[in-house]
């Protein structure tokens, strides 16, 4: 057991899996000599050499498109897109190619690329180093979308992604890269893709969250506990395919739902969760579902703290559904 932060957990997992699987190749901007701008690939170039850790030209469609070609050949490419905000030149490659190869070829050609990219606000990064646009990828059949919130899950989910036969978007919450630390077993283990985690048991209200927002939710829950509200927190962990069983069993238990994400509210992932609950568990609900989300504006700069969901906003939502 070692105490690691999230970015260290990424680094250790990549190293462990690269030792086990010589087909894994990392590629991207600054991932080699520099070890990545967030140091996620630190030391790996030195350890595995330039054929396993490749500094590429500055071109996201090239990084992803070339990764697809490498995967067609049987390698396991793990491209890093420096910030999710910069992925859009490669969006066509993700939407039109990565997500559709298995389907359009009748299963003949598969491209199990794992795209790692830091996402999310809270680092004073303004529009282009802060956004949470996971919903674009959840809206793309053929992709799996995974977001860890703890070092333990980072290792377990990334290990699972690196062994998965399908393309995976592995979104890393950069705000908590270094602030969240925890015990990580040294042994090999996987956290299965598609399984949520009940991060805290409770009876009165369920809060669904993922990524950095899990920790905001946990903070809010302590405030709620002080007011006598016992909140269950579900860390979704995988957005596609999401864990409907865990979602519904928690809703059936509490009947009151708050969904937290930092992405824009309209058509954010919370809308899907709310719709699923409405379709499947309407009569278990004791209050309207409430979403606490980023606002429907471009990501701000100086007013970032006002944009980001915080414990008080989540607490207000918890009280609202609780007192309905």
């Amino acid at each position, binding site marked *: 057991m070692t105490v690691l932060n999230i970015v260290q957990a990424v680094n250790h997992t990549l190293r462990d899996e690269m030792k086990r699987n010589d087909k894994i190749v990392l590629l991207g901007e600054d991932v080699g000599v520099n070890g990545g701008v967030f140091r996620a690939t630190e030391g790996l170039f030195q350890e595995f050499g330039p054929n396993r850790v490749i500094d590429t030209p500055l*071109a996201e469609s090239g990084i992803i498109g*070339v990764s697809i070609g*490498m995967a067609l050949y049987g390698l396991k490419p793990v491209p890093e897109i420096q910030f999710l905000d910069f992925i859009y030149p490669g969006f066509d490659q993700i939407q039109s190619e990565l997500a559709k*190869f298995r389907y359009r*070829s*009748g299963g*003949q050609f598969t491209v199990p690329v794992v795209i790692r990219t830091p996402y999310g606000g809270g680092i004073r990064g303004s529009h282009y180093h802060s956004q949470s646009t996971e919903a674009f990828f959840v809206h793309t059949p053929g992709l799996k979308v995974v977001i860890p919130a703890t070092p333990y899950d980072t290792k377990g989910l990334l290990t699972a992604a690196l062994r998965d036969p399908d393309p995976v978007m592995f979104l890393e919450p950069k705000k908590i890269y270094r602030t969240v630390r925890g015990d990580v077993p040294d042994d090999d283990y996987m956290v299965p893709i598609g399984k949520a985690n009940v991060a805290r048991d409770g009876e009165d209200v369920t809060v669904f969250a993922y990524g950095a927002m899990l920790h905001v939710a946990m903070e809010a829950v302590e405030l709620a506990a002080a007011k006598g509200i016992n909140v269950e927190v579900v860390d979704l962990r995988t957005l596609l395919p999401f864990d409907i069983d865990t979602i519904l069993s928690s809703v059936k238990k509490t009947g009151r739902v708050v969904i937290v994400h930092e992405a824009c509210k309209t058509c954010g992932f919370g809308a899907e969760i709310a719709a699923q609950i409405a379709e499947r568990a309407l009569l278990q609900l004791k209050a309207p579902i409430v979403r606490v989300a980023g606002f429907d504006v471009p990501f701000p700069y100086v007013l970032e703290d006002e944009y980001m969901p915080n414990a008080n906003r989540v607490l207000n939502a918890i009280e609202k559904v609780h007192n309905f």
Partner: protein
Amino acid sequence: MEEIEPDISKDELRRLYRLMVLLRNLDIRGLQLQRQGRIGFFIGSLGQEACQIGSAYALKPQDWAFPAYREIGAALLRGATLKEVMNQYFANAEDLQKGRQLTNLYGLKSIKFVTGSAPIATQIPHAVGTALAAKIRGDPVVTLVYFGDGATSENDFHTGMNFAGVFKTPTVFFCQNNHWAISVPVERQTSAETIAVKAKAYGFEGVRVDGNDVLAIYRTVKEAVEKARKGGGPTLIEAVTYRMGPHSSSDDPTRYRTKEELEEWQRRDPITRFRKYLEKKRIWSESDEKKAQDDANHEIDEAIAHAEKIPRPALETLFTDVYSDMPWHLEEQLRELQEEKGRKEE
């Protein structure tokens, strides 16, 4: 003359010609099938037969081909059977792609012919990635990627060429400059003197070849392939040709180009030219021609007769192959569709 003439046996020359004839007839029949409402869509290679046959013939079995969407001739040369191709045209239950792609967006893993897509130029970085992977693994594998003049305006042309230059990948970029991207002429794609000249900016060689001369194409591609295999890096080849047919079954080229222009290129028809060459070498006769035409049509007839009687792909293929295993939500949607279908049939 003899110095530049490639060393190809008489039988092989005749085989290449017969393939070009098959491809021409397949094109004519394919468009007819669409017009008759028997297949949904058609996109052909009329006038570009030399490009496809000449280029694909220069590859070895371990090499990979990345088509755009007109390269069914290259697939046939690499070993796809007409029966398989026709199953794809009819998008039936025997189609290996399970009826999921428009006509001629064909792929077959056993011949390393990668399933294409309709977005333009996206396959170019794939070809570079596969070549880079082979290079990393130390395998003597070359990739060849097909695209048109229109594709050279796309980001992925630039990014693919750039990665190939930087990593010196064993990639042959084969641009069929057929002069028209639907209705837009090549002059609207670039103000560069040629497309081939663009390679200079990426640090490797670009060459131009007569795209209606199958032997010149073969020779040019073979040189590029051998250079790539020896570690000499990528080459851009611009094959200057002409799309004699419509862009697709949905296009009417009389709206944007002249009859005179078409007639000028019809006089340079790659099949007529190759036939004259074979006749001059006295290895092709009138009776050979008749037999080649008859055989091609017979083979196409048989493939159509077979493909047309095969049913549509099964309902569950709507949901399979999205992932390696079907996740719960697709299982649920499949069940709902099956129940809905069952209710209708009651």
